[in-house]
């Protein structure tokens, strides 16, 4: 059984709340609970009473370009869910909170720091047989004024990744070992999402995102266990400038959350272009041990 969140030794334990905490705040007007899933039917099937849905495609992405929503779009989203700058937004969802941390990351691009993740996500809430509802709540629209989106602190673009690479600064590849090695172009049980080349960014460390969670209930591991993985085993230091990536930036937002908030790394960015961009770019460096191994064997 997981320790209480505040006993786990995180740098910022305030960004994580338990299912108990959420149940105690179901009627708190200063808290807005938001579900963010990959499966489009899950929220409609049932959700935490009073929770709104934040859909990662419809609500967080630009409908035309591969980018996130603009300041205006973010204001409209916050107004729709009835949130003000002072509202604490608690995110949870399927897939061990992949999409919840992705939404959390987008909130940070707009400086909405009053945000938390419900530890264990949707599956834990359901497993604990807590109340659920199919009623879609409506909240009075708010006047939300957001700053312009600021990508500098937490988001990395491909040119920045190239510079990062040139300076030999650490990259963390959070995909499966098979994707990292180039044996597959996509994670197990997922179809190919269109990368022309397999492998990883040269020098990237392979630390699959799932190592940060307890398999039995989807909660985050405590800080000592996380330090063993990221700092002792992989030699990352909290003062490092780190870029994390995966396939489209959803799994790496999970690792970004772990490194920045739970372990206190100051400089962590999420490369959301990730492998679906890098694996299609012309002439960027790639390491692909699976192909290199075959070539060496053939020679």
């Amino acid at each position, binding site marked *: 059984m997981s320790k209480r969140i505040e006993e786990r030794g995180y740098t910022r334990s305030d960004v994580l709340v338990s299912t108990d905490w959420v149940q105690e705040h179901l009627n708190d007007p200063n808290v807005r609970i938001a579900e963010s899933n990959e499966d*489009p*039917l899950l929220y409609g*099937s049932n959700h935490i009473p009073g929770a709104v849905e934040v859909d990662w*495609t*419809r609500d967080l992405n630009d409908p035309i370009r591969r980018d996130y929503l603009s300041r205006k779009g973010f204001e409209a989203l916050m107004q729709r869910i009835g949130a003000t700058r002072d509202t604490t937004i608690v995110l949870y969802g*399927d897939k061990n909170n992949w999409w919840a941390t992705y939404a959390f990351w987008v909130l940070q691009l707009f400086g909405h720091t009053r945000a938390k993740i419900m530890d264990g996500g*949707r599956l834990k809430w359901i497993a604990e047989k807590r109340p659920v509802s199919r009623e*879609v709540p409506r909240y009075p629209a708010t006047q939300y004024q957001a700053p312009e989106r600021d990508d500098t602190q937490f988001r990395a673009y491909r040119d920045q990744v190239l510079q990062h690479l040139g300076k030999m600064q650490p990259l963390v590849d959070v995909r499966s070992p098979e994707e990292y090695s180039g044996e597959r172009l996509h994670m197990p049980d*997922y179809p190919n*999402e269109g990368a022309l080349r397999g492998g990883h960014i040269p020098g990237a460390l392979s630390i699959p995102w799932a190592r940060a969670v307890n398999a039995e209930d989807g909660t985050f591991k405590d800080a000592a266990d996380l330090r063993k993985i990221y700092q002792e085993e992989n030699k990352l230091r909290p003062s490092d400038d780190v870029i994390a990536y995966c396939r489209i930036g959803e799994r790496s937002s999970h690792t970004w959350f772990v490194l920045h908030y739970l372990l206190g790394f100051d400089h962590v960015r999420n490369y959301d272009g990730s492998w679906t961009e890098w694996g299609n770019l012309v002439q960027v460096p790639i390491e692909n041990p699976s192909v290199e191994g075959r070539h060496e064997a053939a020679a």
Partner: protein
Amino acid sequence: MKQLPERFERLLQSLESLDRTDRVQMLVDIAGTFRRVPPSIAERPYPAERRVPGCESEAYVWAKPGSAGTLDYYFAVENPQGISAMALAAILSDSLSGVPPEEIAEIPADVVYRIFGRELSMGKSLGLMGMVNMVRATASQYLRTCAEGVERGT
């Protein structure tokens, strides 16, 4: 473009006529009607060759000969959170069982967008397409088997 089986097309049109909220509710209701493959057809552990490749909801598909040269379709969805896969399984089972396999073999996999809308993640949409593809493949296999039987005079 080939016409889809009539019952299937009617359902798709009715889903397409709904706004997103109503469509989701209808699909959730349909998912609630999903019935796992009966033990008379298959029992756990289900064989790997019946598992839909690329479907993370762990969907399985079976087809058994029904009446007048048609097939009846059965599904299992092992991930209890796989609501979309359950909805699709219920739709395919209900709309395609008893339909001539020639028609089923022609159903395009991207029909999932007509069911769920365009706002599916790539992974989710391709996983669902895998279910349609497996249904098509069983229909094609059945047709080949029948044709070989005719050639052999059996």
